[in-house]
Structure formats: C-alpha cells, structure tokens
C-alpha cells in the first residue's frame, strides 16, 4: 500500500498565521515534516508541507500562500531548519527570524561552500580546523569546519553543495526518458531506494498497479542494497578503530552483495532494474538458486566477520559512548534511519508506512545513540534483510514484472516514502493541468541527518571525527542534488 494520490484542491489551504499555528501544534504532538517546499503559484509561492505521523502511519498535507517572506518556524521547530534554508535559496522567500540563513548548496555563482561565513567560537585558546572539500580518502567532497579547544570540539559546521549538479531542477522538467537515470544517480549507493521512490511517485500519479512479482523483486534489490552498504559500513568502522580483520573481510563481502545485485540486473549498483510500472529483469529458477546460495555464503561470512567486533575489547571500547546523540536531539531535528533508531526512535518506513511487499514488517533495533549503537543497529538490520531476501526467493509471486503506466493525472500531488539503507527517502511531485510535473522534490535521508553528525561531535574529541562520520556515513550527492 503506497500513499494515495491527493488532488491538489484537497490539500488543506490555510492563511499564513493559521498555517504557522497548525504546523507548530502538529509537529509538537508527534508530527514530523516529511517534506516542506515552496512551489511557484500565481506570481507568488505556495508553501506545502507533508506531515508524517509516524506512529499512526498517517500523512497530512497543509499549505499556505507566501510572497517575499514568511515567519520562520525554525526557532520553535529545529527540524525545519534546513527546509527553510532550502526554500530561501531556491525561491528567495525569506524565513524571517531563521537563526542561520546560509545557502544549503551554493547554487548561485558568487559564493562557494568553503569560503562562506562560518559560526565561530571566540577565545584566546580556541582554534579553528578546516577540512575538505578534497579529503584524505576516496570520498565525495564536503567541507567541515571545527571550533576546538585543544582536542575538544565545541562546534562543527558542515558546508556542502560541492556535488550540486541540478538533478532536482531537471527532474521537475519531466517526466521524460532521463527521469529514471536521474533517480538512479541521486545517490549512487542508494539506486534502488531512489529509483523505487521515483517509480512509485509516477505510479501513484498515473494509477498504475505494480504486479506483486515486481514489488518483491524491487524489495530484493532494496534489501541487497542495505546488506551491501551496512556490510561496507561495519568494515569501515572497524578500519577506523584500526581493527583490520573485520575491515578486510567486510570489504570483500560488500562486493559479494553488490555482485548479487549485478546478477539480477547486470549492474553492481542496481542500475537499469527499476522502471515506472515494474522492473526490467525477472528471475528464473536457476538464478533464484544461485542467489540463494550466494546469499547464504556471504551472510555466513558476514556473521563471522562482524561477530569479531563485539568480542574485541579494543573495538568495543572505542565504539562505546563515542559520538553520543541523545534521542531528544534526534527527534527534535527529525532524524531518520539507522541513526535515529540507534537513539531509540522507532521509525522505520517499512513498518510505519508499509510499501511494496512489507506487510507485517517488524524489527526492533534500538540503542543509546553512540557509535556502538549505530554499528549494532546495522548488524540487526542486516540479519533481517538476509531473512527477508531468503524468504522472498523461496516464494516469489507469479505473474508479470511490469504494468503499463498511462498519462499522469493532472492537478495532483503524490508523495512516496521508501526506507533506503540510510533511512527514509521522500519524493514528492505535483502535476500541472497537462499532466506534466509542475514541481518535484527529493528528500534524501542525508538531508536530515547531516546535522545529527554535527551534534554528535559536540564536546567530543576531534580525533573521533572519522569514526563518528563513518557511523553516520551520509551521502553528499544525495544532499546536494
């Protein structure tokens, strides 16, 4: 069951003051902004918010009209801080009273992410450390600015935008043949997650019923993606505390999971598998057998490699109580995914907003918000993913793997929520009178979670940064779009 289509006229429209009051009330009583954007309308803008009530699995839409500026809700509701900055950068609509109104992606020609103004701590022995955009490892570009007292980090500010390549802007010009490629490359390590979200958005808008077999094949892709990335993360965490056995084993095993994905669709990252209406590749009995055998072997080796972590004192000592992020902060900032679950926040889109074949999904993974918890939650999720894939391979529904997608319904809005390996992915689209996209919005879980990393570093040691960063392992390109 996906989130049903909403005719535009059914989106609650409120005067600004009432909008502000209602949003504040709802976000304070268990609501979380799934998406918040400003869409051009009648020479001004319409602010649209979808509020997710995670525990009830319910989504509510609210909107208001704005021109020139609107009162910032960030001082009351920190979870909106980046949405408001984004609205300001994209439209010029100023959130009045926003405490830190910097560009999110530096889309303008004048400024660049690393040379803008940074929040600074003053004092005779306070010093500043600047890192990036080109880092020591083979990773994406970002800039980290630390305010330190000795080894202690008072404040970390993360400046991104280096990967800004105009995907969201171009997606909004669709739907067209390039759309699926944009979705697949929103974050290259989350191809299945974003491609699914994009396809589901289109399917909701055109009313296509995706065949059961296609849904299960999609879910297999999504869980293999989770297995590969979580395995890689556990290996990388191990490497960052200089425990090389698990680092080495997991480096190989991540590849084994990627190669299973390639067995399905030919590409290690899951490209070319998804298409609106279904999937492009099917499995036959021989492939099912091969996948099952490979899954069994890789998972058993992963179990062996990961078990070493919990039994090694030096690893446990470095993971334990490092990069602490409290549940209140995580909730207040609207964090998602394994990072939020590791703080004890029970949000998993697969359970709260079931999609595809996740009918009775249950998984209780929890922790106290340190690196240890973020590592352990990943391991718990890997076990569940392996079980799910194995069970699905045993009982693949019959029938076709794709349905036809007709024209999109005009004047409508659709939101799709998918639990990618980093957390909840949200795609939202609004169609115009001709059934083309009028607006398209992508919220990668990294967009929400980067600030969590900054919070986790507060009062920690700067030498713990690589370890904390790995425990979040967020996407730069998914944020920068």
């Amino acid at each position, binding site marked *: 069951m996906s989130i049903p289509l909403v005719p535009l006229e059914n989106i609650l429209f409120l005067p600004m003051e009432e909008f502000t009051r209602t949003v504040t009330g709802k976000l304070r009583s268990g609501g979380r902004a799934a998406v918040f954007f400003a869409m051009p309308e009648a020479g001004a803008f319409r602010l649209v918010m979808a509020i997710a009530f995670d525990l009830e699995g319910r989504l509510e839409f609210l909107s208001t009209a704005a021109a020139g500026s609107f009162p910032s809700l960030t001082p009351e509701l920190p979870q909106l801080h980046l949405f408001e900055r984004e609205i300001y950068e994209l439209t010029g609509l100023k959130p009045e009273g926003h405490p830190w109104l910097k560009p999110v992606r530096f889309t303008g020609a004048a400024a660049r992410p690393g040379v803008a103004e940074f929040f600074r701590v003053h004092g005779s022995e306070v010093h500043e450390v600047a890192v990036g955009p080109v880092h020591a490892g083979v990773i994406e570009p970002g800039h980290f600015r630390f305010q330190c007292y000795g080894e202690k980090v008072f404040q970390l500010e993360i400046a991104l935008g280096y990967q800004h390549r105009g995907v969201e802007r171009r997606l909004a010009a669709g739907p067209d043949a390039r759309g699926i490629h944009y979705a697949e*490359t929103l974050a290259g390590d989350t191809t299945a997650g974003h491609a699914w979200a994009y396809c589901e958005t289109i399917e909701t808008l055109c009313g296509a019923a995706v065949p059961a077999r296609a849904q299960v094949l999609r879910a297999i892709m999504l869980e293999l993606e989770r297995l590969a990335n979580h395995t890689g993360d556990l290996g990388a965490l191990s490497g960052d505390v200089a425990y090389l056995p698990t680092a080495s084993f997991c480096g190989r095993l991540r590849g084994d999971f990627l190669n299973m994905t390639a067995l399905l669709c030919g590409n290690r990252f899951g490209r070319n598998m998804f298409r609106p209406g279904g999937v492009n590749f099917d499995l036959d009995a021989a492939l099912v057998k091969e996948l099952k055998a490979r899954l069994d072997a890789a998972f058993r080796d992963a179990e062996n490699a990961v078990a070493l972590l919990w039994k090694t004192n030096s690893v446990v000592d470095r993971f334990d109580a490092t990069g602490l992020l409290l549940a209140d902060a995580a909730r207040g900032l609207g964090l998602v995914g394994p990072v939020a679950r590791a703080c004890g926040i029970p949000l998993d889109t697969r359970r709260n907003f079931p999609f595809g074949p996740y009918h009775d999904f249950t998984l209780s993974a929890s922790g106290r918000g340190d690196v240890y918890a973020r590592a352990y939650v990943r391991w718990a999720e890997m076990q569940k993913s392996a079980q799910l894939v194995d069970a699905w391979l045993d009982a693949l529904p019959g029938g076709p793997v794709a349905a036809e997608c007709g024209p999109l319904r005009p004047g409508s809005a659709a939101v799709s929520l998918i639990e990618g390996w980093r957390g909840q992915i949200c795609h939202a689209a609004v169609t115009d009178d001709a059934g083309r996209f009028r607006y398209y919005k992508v919220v990668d879980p990294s967009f929400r979670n980067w600030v969590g990393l900054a919070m986790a570093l507060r009062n920690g040691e700067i030498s713990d940064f690589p370890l904390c960063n790995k425990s979040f392992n967020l996407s730069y390109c998914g944020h920068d779009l």
Partner: protein
Amino acid sequence: MFKEIIARFKQGYRTMEFPAPGLALPARGLGLPVVKTLEETAAQACVYGAISAGPGGGLDMGRCVFCGACAQAAPGAVEFTKEYKLCASARQDLVVGNAGFKRAAPVAADIRRILGRSFKLRQVSAGGCGACEADCNVLGTLAWDMGRFGVQFVASPRHADGILVTGPVTKNMELALRKTYDAVPGPKVVIACGACAIAGGPYAGHEECVGIPRDIPVDLYIPGCPPHPLTILDGLLRLIGRID
C-alpha cells in the same frame, strides 16, 4: 588473537587473479558495444546523443551511460558484449564504429619508466553520484588488491603521480579540482573515470556542471556509469604499461 586466526581461516584467501583468462562482466552486464549497423532507430533511442547514425558515425562510449536503451530499440544494430576492456587514451577513440574502437595505449616511455612500478593517484570527486568513487575504493579491498601492482590512492596530491577525476565537475568543485591538479608534482597524468567525468554522464548539458577544464589534459578515459572495477583496473594497468 586466536579468534582472528580462526576467522581468517574461515574467510579464506579471496584475492582474485588479474588479468586472468575468462574474466568478464556479469551475464546481464553491459560491456563493450558492438555496432553492426548505424540505424536511426538506435540513435533516436539514446537520450544522451551517444549514437550518430550514418557513415562515419558510431557509438560514443564517453557519452554512454550503458542503459541499453539503444540495443532494446534496435536489437539488430547495437549489441552489448561482456567485454570489460573499454578504456581509451584519446577522447575520439571512445567512439565505437563498425570496426570497433582503439584501446588505451601506455603513457610515453619516459613517464612509464617513472610510474610503471609505483603509481600513486589522488582521487578528486567532482559532482556525480558517488558510484565511481565506490568502485575505485573497491580496488583497494583484498578481493582486488590493487596495491600488488604498485597502484594506490593516496591522501595528498603532493604524494601523487596524477589525479583520477570522477563526476561532471560542478561549478562548486571547479576550483578545488584545479588546486588539487596544480598541487601534484610533474610529470603527472590525468584520468577521467566514468561517463560524468568524460562527457557529463546523466548530467550532460546541465548549467551547474563545467566538465574537466580544457587546459587539464586527460591521459586515460574510463567509460561506464559507473565503470566496473575490472574496467578501471584494466585501464590503470594499461596506462602504466603493466598489461597490453
């Protein structure tokens, strides 16, 4: 200590032989295209303009994101094989015509003498989706063990013999790319890895992207979206003359 030894025993020796006979992309993978006829249908199926029909035309692997749309639209015209050796030394060599394409040649003999046994690269990620970076990283894992060939990604451009660029080079990364390139001591090589770095990839034509500046000469083009690790490793080893 003992638990690690036991685990190592269970995990086994996993480094693959490379190059080895029979190595190929997965059964459903899309490798080197074979262009049989230059049909208009195939050209029209490509949203990136990678195929030019008619005499003298061909399939430009630099623009290709290996989605297979052309082969699906015109099965008789284009076919993708499982061949992973796709790298070329010059931009125009990436065009696959009726007669195939021109595979990468080693760098000049004097540079090869310097780099042939110890080749250190600074990777610069400049836009893109992070998949090329992931498949470069994988070459450092024990399964691929790129280090055995003397090839390694290093932290500082000062320690590097060249840069490997991924991504379409966004405006926001242009300066950082140039500074990193300038910081590498000569003689140095430049490698464009992936469809984005070669010709913009899925983001071709976006105003947010500028591409590798013309005055930074590229010595090796690695096509793919992203290139398979086999393709990347093959290209790097060809460049330094370790395989031919």
